[in-house]
């Protein structure tokens, strides 16, 4: 696709959890918990007014706003602030300084006084019904010439466990939100920018790591399309694909619009109760429905079922809107007969509704209220197909397609968090803030100064164990030994089931030092670390492998093993070295260098044959 010709424009918002001691507005630790550890739970309703629901069809919105009950899990690491039972503490200074360090890297202008705002969020993920957020800096630049518009500090939302149940451990963890302008024009641009910003974030050494700790929202539009915000892209590798698929979706929706207009298509106003038509239906979904309603989409035939993204059709878009009423989705005539609905039933329905061949029919089934809501939502979305691409907030599905979440939020949903005093950022503080060395620069330095090869250097700087590596190098450990132990050996041990997470950095350093001062051979590292992970004290584990094996001892061992298998050695000659190596190492592992064993064996074999 020629994205320039399409007029593709994209921007990203990156949300990154910070690894601070305490949460943004309370003194709880930023520790994530297992839901099984929860100490209590409570439930609340969130009450919203129509204006806070955005621009969804008003009548449908009113039904939805009725009463929304949410359940929350509490922990011994959460407090009354997360429960929305206590006013917030002052803004976490550590988090603010991390945000300022980032602002420095992007050459931004910090605001002189930070004001915390309440941003309405009524999906239950915030117990209060709003998210606290504050603008910290503006007007930054990216190396590729792009613009970082803002850095905000926000509270992380509660994690949805399932349905309307949320876990409060995550609520309130500080997040930085970095927003670029729509300054990217190809899918690859977007991915590269996200990668760069991710690297900058990790350069602070103060961000949480792992799945879900960084989330990208992508804003995409094409020339005649509309701005669409895609939420929660967690995998960096999928970003370009998400942008490509959104461009494809908007292009196809515009083509559908043109086709609909050419056909003078329209959305039927009348929703009919067609329950009796399906009295004897074999469709399991329609069978259990109290009410079945249907309406006609004049001139839509064939287009409701047209694919707009892999696995997504205009019908899926309509279904998404209907799901907001608590229904599973819709049936539409482009996909029927199917799902137990017979051709005969479709024909009867067409006749009953007076639908022509060029018309499509939408069916919703469920309770009386939900189907009334669903039919209105379906009509609403269908009407928007005549206009082109609706402005929407969408969520990413697996593989990179997206589904509808809610209308785009406006700026209008913010008001001051009066319980938090504004925080001044005086010139003195701003000058004191140090921008950390970027990991890309650090990797180059490791390559040049420490002699790591480029790939290993990159691996080291992007590893969570970077601080440990630096400590090791500072302690005089050879960089290659440190890097290979920390990145290679530990990983392999972990794969083999050793509890490497129990190893304290100080213990790993002590083992490496024992290697460097010649107390133990480097071959002993895996065994020593395994022993330490299993609870043995470092000194003891090192002691068990210390002293090693003298050349004389090694020679005696090698002679004995060769003598025991002398027939085998004579038969195989030098090819016996491999099998015998294993036998000698079983005795000598960790006490003597493998190469030395190999050399001793070679000599002994050549002596006897």
């Amino acid at each position, binding site marked *: 696709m020629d994205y320039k010709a399409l007029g593709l424009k994209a921007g990203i918002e990156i949300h990154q959890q910070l690894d601070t001691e305490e949460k943004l507005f309370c003194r709880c630790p930023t520790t994530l918990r297992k839901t099984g550890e929860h100490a209590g739970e409570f439930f609340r309703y969130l009450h919203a007014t129509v204006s806070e629901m955005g621009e969804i069809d008003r009548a449908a919105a009113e039904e939805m706003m009725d009463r929304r009950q949410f359940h929350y899990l509490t922990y011994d690491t959460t407090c009354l602030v997360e429960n929305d*039972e206590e006013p917030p503490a002052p803004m976490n200074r550590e988090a603010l300084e991390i945000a300022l360090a980032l602002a420095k890297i992007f050459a931004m202008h910090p605001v002189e006084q930070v004001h915390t705002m309440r941003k309405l969020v009524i999906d239950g993920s915030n117990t*209060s019904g709003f998210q606290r957020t504050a603008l910290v800096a503006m007007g930054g630049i990216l190396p590729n010439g792009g613009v970082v518009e803002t850095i905000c500090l926000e509270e992380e939302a509660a994690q949805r466990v399932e349905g309307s149940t949320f876990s409060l451990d995550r609520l309130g963890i500080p997040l930085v939100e970095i927003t670029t302008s729509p300054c990217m024009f190809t899918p690859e641009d977007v991915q590269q920018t996200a990668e760069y910003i991710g690297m900058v974030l990790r350069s602070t050494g103060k961000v949480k790591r792992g799945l879900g700790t960084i989330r990208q929202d992508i804003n995409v539009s094409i020339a005649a399309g509309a701005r669409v915000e895609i939420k929660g892209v967690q995998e960096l590798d999928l970003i370009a694909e998400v942008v490509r698929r959104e461009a494809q979706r908007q292009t196809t929706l515009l083509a559908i619009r043109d086709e609909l207009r050419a056909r003078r298509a329209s959305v039927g106003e009348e929703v009919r109760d067609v329950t009796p038509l399906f009295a004897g239906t074999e469709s399991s979904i329609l069978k259990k429905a109290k009410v079945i309603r249907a309406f006609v989409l004049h001139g839509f035939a064939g287009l409701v079922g047209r694919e707009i993204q892999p696995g997504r059709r205009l019908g899926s878009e309509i279904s998404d809107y209907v799901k907001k009423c608590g229904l599973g989705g819709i049936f539409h005539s482009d996909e029927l007969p199917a799902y137990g609905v017979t051709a005969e039933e479709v024909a009867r329905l067409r006749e009953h509704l007076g639908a022509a061949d060029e018309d499509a029919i939408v069916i919703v089934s469920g309770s009386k209220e939900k189907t009334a809501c669903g039919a209105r939502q379906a009509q609403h979305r269908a009407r928007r197909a005549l206009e082109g691409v609706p402005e929407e907030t969408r969520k990413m599905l697996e593989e990179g397609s997206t589904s509808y979440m809610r209308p785009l939020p406006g700026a209008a949903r913010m008001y001051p968090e009066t319980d938090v005093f*504004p925080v001044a950022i005086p010139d003195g503080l701003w000058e004191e803030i140090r921008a950390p060395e970027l990991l890309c620069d650090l990797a180059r330095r490791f390559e040049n100064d420490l002699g790591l090869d480029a790939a290993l250097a990159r691996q080291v700087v992007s590893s969570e164990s970077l601080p440990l590596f630096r400590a090791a190098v500072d302690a005089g450990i050879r960089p290659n030994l440190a890097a290979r132990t920390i990145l290679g050996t530990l990983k392999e041990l972990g794969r083999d089931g050793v509890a490497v997470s129990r190893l304290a950095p100080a213990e790993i350093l002590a083992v490496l030092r024992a290697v460097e001062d010649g107390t133990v051979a480097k071959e002993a590292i895996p065994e020593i670390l395994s022993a330490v992970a299993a609870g043995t004290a470092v000194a003891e584990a090192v002691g068990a492998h210390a002293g090693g094996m003298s050349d004389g001892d090694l020679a005696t061992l090698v002679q004995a093993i060769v003598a025991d298998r002398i027939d085998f050695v004579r038969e195989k000659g030098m090819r016996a070295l491999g099998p015998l190596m294993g036998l000698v190492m079983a005795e000598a592992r960790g006490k003597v260098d493998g190469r030395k064993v190999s050399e001793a064996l070679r000599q002994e074999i050549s002596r006897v044959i």
Partner: protein
Amino acid sequence: MSDTFTTGDIVAASCRGQPVEGIYITDRDGMAVVKLGSGYNIGVDPATCTLVAKSGETAVQPPLTVEQDESLPELAIISTGGTIASKIDYRTGAVTSQFTADDILRAIPGLSSIGRYRAGVLATILSENMTPSIWQDLARAIHAAIRDGAAGVLVTHGTDTMAYSASAVSYMLDTPVPVVFVGSQRSADRPSSDNVMNGMCAAAAAGADLGEIAVTMHATTNDDFCAVHRATRVRKMHTSRRDAFQSHGMAPIGRVDFPSLAVHLTDDAVRRGACTLALHDRLEERCGLLYFYPGMAPEILRAYEGYRGLVIAGTGLGHVSTGCIRAVRDLIDAGAAVVMTSQCLHGRVCDRVYDTGRDLLSAGVIEGEDMLPEAALTKLMWVLGNESDPERVQRLMTADLKGEIRRRSDHGL
């Protein structure tokens, strides 16, 4: 300069050299607060602000009249300043408290299925600024509403001193209908506010078979039900939790389930029509409430010279130090009524067990039985407002007038 701007003006400013434009909100702490197009507020140097456009005429919302169902019972809403309804202006971020019946019904639409309402504003103050004379005005306003036909009265009140006001009104007013105090612990602008549930449960209680003054607030941290508390036995026991209000010395007199709004009253609750409407609105304001602490100087007691009444929140069974007894005796000899209550809040005062207690009794201290200190204070104000004979004062203070004294301590903590 920024003092030439008014809220809503569009201004240009500089944020450390970065040009910004937004809506001028206010000047605070030497900074101009500007709301940017994104909705964020920031503080900027007021000297950098220049006017782009004056505030446009704010579009006046057509006053949407909320339809009221004439078949439902008529309830009065009297506002004293506690906000159970508020409105957010997202343009400026201003949150304003709402007091008219229409505004309250718009903020809590569920109310309109419970009753039809007349709303009046008695005061718009923070509840810590309440005074005995406003309690009197409140009793009079409630009296008038009931006299004019209200089947129940809702009093919206800040939670800090709600228990004082409710108990004060209890003594001043004999009511045949429910008078229900209600507030919210969490601000009304937030979607999670307890205002909706408290307001609806209180309205349900105000329409129920109740004939006394009550406080209706969240019973748990869940949005599951509200407790109906007797006004003279309730106290705010937490600074911020929704279920801050707790009955003392007795269980709540009822509960209202949410969202069903089913009202369950206990046998203790006084029923509708049990007494006839009457107002006795005299209060003696020269009364105090003193929290004793170890080492308290007798001079502090002497500062109450000239007061007609003093409630002491003493230690344990109802004590002050031996060194203070003299000062207590002097107050009583000068004509003041001194009533002993306990800092324990739970349990009954008994000054017959220890020497200091016996000395206090011989000095003329009145044992406040199991009254809460606050309910004893408002009672003393009312008793002294209506009675000056020390013996009759003593008899009234130790008699149960409005449920503030229980003859038996049948309820534990």
